[in-house]
């Protein structure tokens, strides 16, 4: 079915989007070819020097990618496992089913920055409740000042914040599953574990993959949490790629270089996310 009217449907949105984006992206690319910073403001042209520097002289950038991968893969996996478990638990009848469902949704509805501000006070090493409770056991871990624990703290906050998103998508998926396969499994004498492995999980596979991909895309942008909680520290231990770009651009004001970083980051993310999506979808088709 094809009519001339189809353009009237598509073009408004597409034009608005491209219109708003075209200058920023174009400008970013142009900026990346200049050496605009506080000392040499202005749009000169230095060719691909920024990119050369990025590839040869900037290990901090590439390290940030590793940290980002570690953080996003860990948090998304945890969110998936916990989110799925929670969804399974409130799926069928339990006491206060609706209360728990609403409760489990709430963290996602809060503004991450604001909650992180609270988390900062929560994990405060001398005045916060976490260490207060733990001091009973004689430990007071340096949540925000130890390079490894800082990562853990970020993971905890991210899991708190975004597990509801997985929970929501997976619960919606579970609620839409047909009843027949489960009845058939019961008739065949399958217990809850077998039912899960052979019926629930396979049926949920497409939704799981969709949810994981979406969460990975969102998780890779992690910024608010890092900004408020650790400012990328201690040192650079929680510095993710986007935070590093932020530092170079809006703290050190190396606009040209950070634009080059941005563009490279974008290309890498698009390629890797596309590869991961295709891989997961192939996995699904195989099943």
């Amino acid at each position, binding site marked *: 079915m094809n009519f001339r009217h189809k353009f009237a449907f598509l073009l408004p949105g597409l034009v608005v989007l491209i219109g708003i984006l075209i200058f920023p992206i174009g400008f970013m690319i142009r900026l990346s070819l200049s050496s605009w910073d506080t000392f040499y403001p202005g749009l000169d042209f230095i060719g691909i020097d920024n990119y050369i520097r990025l590839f040869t002289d900037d290990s901090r950038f590439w390290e940030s990618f590793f940290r980002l991968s570690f953080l996003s893969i860990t948090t998304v996996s945890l969110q998936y496992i916990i989110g799925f478990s929670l969804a399974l638990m409130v799926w069928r009848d339990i006491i206060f089913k609706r209360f728990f469902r609403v409760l489990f949704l709430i963290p996602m509805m809060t503004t991450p920055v604001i909650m992180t501000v609270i988390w900062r*006070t929560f994990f405060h090493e001398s005045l916060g409740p976490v260490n207060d409770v733990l001091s009973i056991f004689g430990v007071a871990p340096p949540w925000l000042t130890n390079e490894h624990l800082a990562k853990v703290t970020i993971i905890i906050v991210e899991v708190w914040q975004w597990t509801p998103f997985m929970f929501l998508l997976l619960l919606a*998926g579970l609620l*839409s599953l047909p009843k027949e396969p489960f009845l058939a499994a019961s008739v065949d004498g399958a217990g809850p574990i077998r039912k899960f492995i052979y019926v629930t999980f396979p049926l949920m596979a497409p939704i799981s993959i969709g949810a994981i991909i979406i969460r990975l895309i969102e998780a890779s*942008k992690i910024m608010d949490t890092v900004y408020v909680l650790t400012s990328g520290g201690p040192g650079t231990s929680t510095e993710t790629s*986007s935070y590093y770009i932020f530092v170079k651009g809006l703290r050190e004001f190396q606009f040209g270089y950070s634009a080059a970083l941005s563009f490279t980051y974008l290309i890498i993310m698009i390629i890797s996310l596309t590869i991961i999506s295709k891989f997961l979808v192939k996995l699904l088709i195989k099943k």
Partner: protein
Amino acid sequence: MRTFYIFIKYFFITIWSMFVIAPFLWALSTSFKDFNSVTGGAKYIPWLQFEPSLEGWSVLIRSQGKGGVNIIEPYFNSVFVTCSASLLSIIFGTLAAYALSRFTFKAGFIRNNDITFFFISQRIMPPIVLSIPFFLMLGFLGLLDSLLGLILVYMVLLMPIAVWIMVDFFNRVPKEIDETALIDGCNPFEAFFKVVLPNSIPGLIVAGLFCIIFGWIDFFFAFILTFTKVQLLPVAIVALNSSVTPWWSLSASALVSVAPLIIVAFIVERYLSKGNLSGALK
């Protein structure tokens, strides 16, 4: 064996529930403290462990001149910007999603799926990547520190969500219904507005909810692109996070700001239980 499962189930739910509530309780308790209560080590229960004070809360009502924190205006700004941007994103996004679902586009090697991918891939960009260019662009247009500027920028964030959800939804509505409408005398616009749209309400609601949620929680763009005239809620609150941290007012304002979306949580759950959400999200 069954009771073991049930025990585990309730145990896990309880633990997670406590984890979910913990920061709120802490914030609630902290909002009633003052300087001494906070620095003297962690305290929890008012009156028992410390003297409660209404300092944190009164700061919200006092005007800025007397050292208060104005959150009423940022509150309304946030509501206005979020709702406007969501509305526009849904309008443009739904129209585009319908086209991508029903018609075939071919421009060289670009097909429907590529266009859809283009829309959705906007979510991959972290705010930082676009913030400096947007900063310059809005500056050039005189839209820095303005509501309109923010709405334009938010549309880039939210339209992909609307497109993603609605394309999936439209793909589930049988094409034959559109065809019948055409045969019955509707041109494609009438077919869309009179027949397809009335049957897409669940999808629109889901798209709307997600747009509102993701629009409300943005911090970064508001942070970079506004200063004093226009402030959004997250920015106003984080601004309090200076070195001499007034934990009490921070906690109070934080609690106030997260309250509205709890209502959204109720709406989402209601829809989930009715089964409408599941169809739209698959």
